[in-house]
């Protein structure tokens, strides 16, 4: 057990994500994140905001173990990212869905296969994977385009496929990095409603965005980063105590 784990009696409570004095530096002397401590409870919906270079993407990358912190500790679903073995990363990622601004779909696969692949990598039989993928596509309104390839879809549709892929495994955490960055306002709301509905089913959601209109519209807890540090942490106004 690490020093932090010994000093943190609340670990393993209802925290889906906890960071403790986390810093990330790519070049010596400059920090993408600096001394960041925060907690996101299970089932909570959080916006991460801030200008470009504030550290939003870096924080998300740390949460799904694409990067390791330079300093500090990160607990995601009870696993310490700083000490996670390389071989343990896949099993953690199966509990986390990730959505990117650029969709990250496999253009040579049909959209159904793009969704099913998230199930196939964990050993779900193909037939079952395709069935679940179809049901997921139905939820995002794309079941009629199951045999289409991503490049024949609009940006909004591609992002819906990416969300379907991220949610098909029923992840405990959904991370979205500027998920509406490439979309027009109508599609933005459509995508945000899908992400928001995952939160209502108990998934912890963290959305990185610099779109203030979204933050105002959904009025969820908002953490604003500035220069790699937390500048503000505004609670969910709808659930805040009077």
């Amino acid at each position, binding site marked *: 057990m690490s020093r932090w784990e010994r000093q943190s009696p609340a670990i393993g409570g209802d925290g889906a994500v906890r960071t403790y004095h986390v810093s990330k530096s790519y070049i010596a002397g400059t920090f993408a994140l600096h001394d960041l401590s925060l907690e996101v409870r299970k089932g909570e919906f959080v916006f991460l905001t801030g200008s470009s270079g504030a550290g939003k993407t870096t924080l998300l990358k740390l949460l799904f173990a694409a990067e390791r912190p330079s300093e500090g500790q990160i607990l995601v679903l009870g696993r310490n990212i700083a000490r996670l073995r390389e071989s343990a990363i896949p099993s953690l990622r199966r509990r986390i869905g990730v959505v990117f601004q650029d969709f*990250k779909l*496999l253009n040579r696969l049909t959209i159904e296969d793009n969704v099913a692949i*998230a199930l196939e990598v964990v050993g779900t039989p193909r037939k079952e994977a395709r069935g679940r993928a179809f049901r997921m596509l139905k939820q995002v309104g794309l079941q009629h385009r199951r045999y289409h390839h991503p490049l024949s879809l609009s940006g909004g549709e591609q992002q819906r496929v990416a969300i379907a892929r991220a949610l098909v495994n029923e992840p405990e955490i959904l991370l979205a990095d500027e998920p509406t960055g490439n979309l027009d306002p109508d599609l933005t709301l459509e995508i945000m409603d899908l992400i928001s509905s995952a939160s209502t089913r108990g998934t912890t959601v963290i959305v990185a965005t610099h779109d203030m209109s979204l933050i105002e519209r959904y009025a969820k807890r908002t953490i604003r980063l500035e220069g790699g540090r937390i500048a503000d942490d505004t609670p969910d106004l709808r659930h805040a105590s009077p």
Partner: protein
Amino acid sequence: MAIALARSAVRGLTAAPVTTSIAVFTIAAALVLAGGFGLLVTNMSDVLSRFGEELQVVAYLEDGLDARAQRRIATSVSTVEGVESVSIVTKEEALARFRETADGVGLLEGLEENPLPASLEVRLRAERRTPEGVDVVVRALSGLPGIAELAHGQEWVEGYARFASLVRAGAIGLGLVLGVAALMIVANTIRLAVYSREDELEILSLVGASRSFVRIPFLVEGALQGALGGLFAVGLLYLGFAVALPRLEYGLELVLGNASPQFFTSVQALTLVAAGGALGLLGSATAILSWRSPA
């Protein structure tokens, strides 16, 4: 899971036909070089083995021995360690053989008596067809009564042995160089294929695919590409063998003598295909095991 991996491998092969074709033809080209050389060495080895089979010791018998005495000496020679068989060449047979040569006819004109001695042609066991083996047999025979002289072409034997070992060493050396060169070419070609599909690897890694789930399809693809390259190489070599052979007849005669060149046996051809598969597997292993996921 195995089906998913196999499907992923086949999908990978068909998804990037240009990259796949480049890899297959690179492997085929490397194997055509190695296989062509192998074909030459195989044929040379056959010729060398035939030379080896002709190695023998000739024991010239003393004059005046009757047929019974000759047979007795032949029997005692056949018991010497390293001797496979002994055949008697009588004076008359020796003369008849001599007359068969064009020069022989003129040389013997005017002679009243047959000057050629009877002899024993001593064939050696396969393992004794070496300079050392010949020496041992010659020493054993030199003390036997009735034998006037021994001829064994020691210098020729030594020359033959040197040539044989030189060819074999050359074959091993060149085979190793070609093998390493082919491996490097294949590894780099497959590395390019890996880089061209880095996005896919990243996405698989993001959705929680294990290292083996991401990497095994590439290994299967590498082995399939290699085996396919091996098949092409066998086909190209056969085509080259059939088409070019009549045109290269004179050149090949210099290397192979009068022996007619033979193509690979089916086992040798399969070995080349398997070698392609192994090269592809090793090449893709070198490429994919050094790849680090950006996510």
